[in-house]
């Protein structure tokens, strides 16, 4: 169905819901590249005014990608809970924005609402929200997940220790793991991106982390971020797989380009659950997403990149993940050009994910061909800390020497914990104190652990 709005005799016409969503989106290069963004500032606001009047119910009747041809649309529609939807069923998208900001709309209300919200509703309302709205509402949501520790509690901030090495050299990786642990990093996961997806190589890395974890009794989980088919193979050959990783996106065709689909995810989820390795809980999946992947795979169907991203979250929540990480600035300037666009996208993703019930973390990052630097990342880091982000990355000196991009350092996490009074996952915090890595207040201390770790690993 078509929509229109008139401003000073200028009639703005929007062909359908996806056109309206795209034109209402705050500017970013990816939507311009796709040729779907508003042509002027006025057209963008006209689209936002029009979108504000669209009833939320419309999103259940008009899909942005046809039900018949896309399994993610089918998942979205089929898993929608109309009972959970009741409290907001009478609202327009604009009223929904105001309702979300109400004092009465607290964490518990949002928790009960999540399966009544579709990704398109979340994306739509986010387009009507300023950065401070995205922060204020996300902060109300508490999404807690468990494997060997408890992640996402209010007042806590976890980190993924990311000890990548360009040739997967075990000693190089071990050196970064020790550095990270001694800086209090790694409670979300110790997660390695392997340089090459070889089953034998991945197996070696899994064994490396698992041995360290057991030797020093660290209450955390490990992951080697290989393709899901590699992980399934490794599970079948008895590898110590804690978490199953996969990159996912919001259209079936994009997922096909990643070599993955819902049936394969079902299979991997069941296989990982069957290992039963969690001690505190059984959230076994780790997903990564990021705006722009569908356009990059030429599989966006004319849907804007932020709405595509939100649709990926419906895939994620089917599998009760421990961690969902939007790798926001990795994709490059053709999708998110500069610090301003990266910051906006990260806050949108964090908000949409939390609203849909996901344990959102953000890889606060940029590449060297983007117009961004450390100052932009400091801004985003601080904003996400305020918004209650579940976890961020921890990388030696912000510099990932394998993936060639900059993310947050171990020091960055300590800065954020210090200025906002945030603490690590409780079990991990106890471990840090017991090992003498930090004191009760989170201040780094001198520890004997270093010598023992070096003796063990080298």
């Amino acid at each position, binding site marked *: 169905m078509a929509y229109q709005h008139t401003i000073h005799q200028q009639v703005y016409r929007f062909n359908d819901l996806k056109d309206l969503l795209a034109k209402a989106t705050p500017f970013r*290069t990816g939507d311009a*590249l796709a040729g779907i963004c508003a042509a002027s500032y006025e057209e963008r606001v006209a689209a936002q005014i029009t979108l504000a009047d669209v009833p939320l119910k419309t999103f259940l009747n008009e899909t942005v990608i046809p039900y018949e041809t896309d399994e993610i649309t089918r998942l979205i529609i089929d898993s929608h809970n109309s009972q959970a939807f009741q409290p907001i069923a009478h609202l327009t998208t604009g009223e929904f924005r105001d309702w979300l900001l109400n004092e009465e709309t607290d964490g518990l209300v949002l928790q009960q609402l999540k399966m009544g919200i579709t990704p398109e509703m979340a994306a739509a309302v986010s387009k009507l929200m300023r950065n401070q709205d995205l922060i204020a509402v996300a902060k109300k949501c508490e999404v807690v997940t468990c494997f060997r520790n408890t992640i996402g509690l209010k007042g806590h901030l976890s980190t993924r220790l990311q*000890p*990548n*090495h*360009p*040739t997967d*050299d075990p*000693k*190089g*990786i071990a*050196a*970064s793991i*020790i*550095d990270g642990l001694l800086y209090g990093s790694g409670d979300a996961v110790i997660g390695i991106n392997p*340089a*090459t*997806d*070889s*089953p*034998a*190589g991945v197996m070696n890395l899994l064994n490396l982390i698992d041995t360290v974890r057991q030797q020093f009794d660290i209450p955390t989980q490990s992951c080697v971020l290989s*393709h899901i*088919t*590699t992980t399934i193979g490794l599970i079948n050959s008895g590898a110590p797989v804690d978490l199953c990783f996969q990159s996912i996106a919001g259209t079936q065709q994009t997922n*096909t*380009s*990643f*070599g993955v689909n819902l049936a394969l995810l079902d299979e991997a989820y069941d296989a990982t659950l069957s290992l039963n390795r969690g001690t505190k809980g059984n959230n076994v999946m780790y997903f990564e997403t990021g705006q722009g992947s569908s356009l*990059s*795979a030429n599989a966006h169907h004319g849907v804007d990149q932020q709405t595509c991203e939100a649709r990926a979250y419906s895939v994620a929540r089917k599998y009760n993940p421990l961690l969902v990480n939007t790798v926001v600035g990795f994709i*490059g*300037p*053709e999708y998110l*050009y500069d610090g301003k666009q990266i910051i906006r996208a990260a806050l949108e993703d964090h908000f949409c994910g939390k609203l849909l019930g996901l344990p959102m973390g953000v890889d606060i990052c940029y*590449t*060297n*061909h983007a117009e961004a*630097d*450390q100052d932009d990342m400091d801004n985003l880091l601080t904003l996400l800390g305020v918004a209650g982000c579940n976890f961020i990355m921890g*990388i*030696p*000196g*912000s*510099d*990932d*020497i394998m*993936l*060639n*991009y*900059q993310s947050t*350092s171990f*020091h960055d996490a*300590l*800065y954020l914990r210090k200025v906002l009074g945030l603490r690590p996952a409780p079990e991990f915090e106890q471990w840090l104190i017991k090992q003498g890595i930090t004191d009760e207040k989170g*201040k*780094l201390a001198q520890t004997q652990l*270093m010598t023992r770790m*070096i003796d063990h690993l*080298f």
Partner: protein
Amino acid sequence: MEKREPAAVKINDPWNSLKQFTDARIALGRAGSSIPLKQELEFKLAHAHARDAVYSLLNNEHLIKAISPLDLPLLQLHSQAGNRQQYLQRPDLGRLLDNTSSQLVKDYANANDICIILADGLSAGAINDHAAELLENLIPLLKGVNYKLSPICLAGQARVAIGDEIAYGLQAKFSVVLIGERPGLSAADSIGAYLTYYPKPGLTDESRNCVSNIRKQGLSFHLAAEKIFYLIQEAFKRKLSGVELKDNAGLLDS
């Protein structure tokens, strides 16, 4: 009055010895819990180098000279992206050959096995400095098992997928795109190799295998060549490339 030593403003990490095992920025020390200024400025300088690498250009004259001992014909091609700024914002143009180049490719079409493409990607410097050495390691392996090679292609303002159009146009059964990777801070000169069986326009990432971080301090040219050679042979044997083709070379060694 007793004179007191001022407290140290910077705390060093006692695990400095671990630096021998990795180029990662470990054992930086700290000022409070923040990174000390000296290390901050080192980071800033590295970022400046990476920014400069993004804006570097292919040196065709130098490359032609450097690979002439391999005795293979060579085509100079260009994408539809006119300059670096456009290249950065319009990846679609970087995947397509301009008119002159696509005519040139048609003229040289000849059923062959493997087409090797050198593309600037995001670090032309990486190709300028290292592509010749990688080829010196790779070409003898390929010739040793009698693969028929298409002309070597130099592609300017190019992205990985430009290899599909080039290899398809040249009628090669397999493409090897050696491309300058996105510069990091400790490596602004890394080459990535993207391998595709039966390349044709429209393929996406799941159809390719990638060998990354090829540079002096990363995956060495010798090992990279062996890995690429292994994957090419496996791909021809199994008639596919991409996620279904695993690098099991590590398993064979053990």
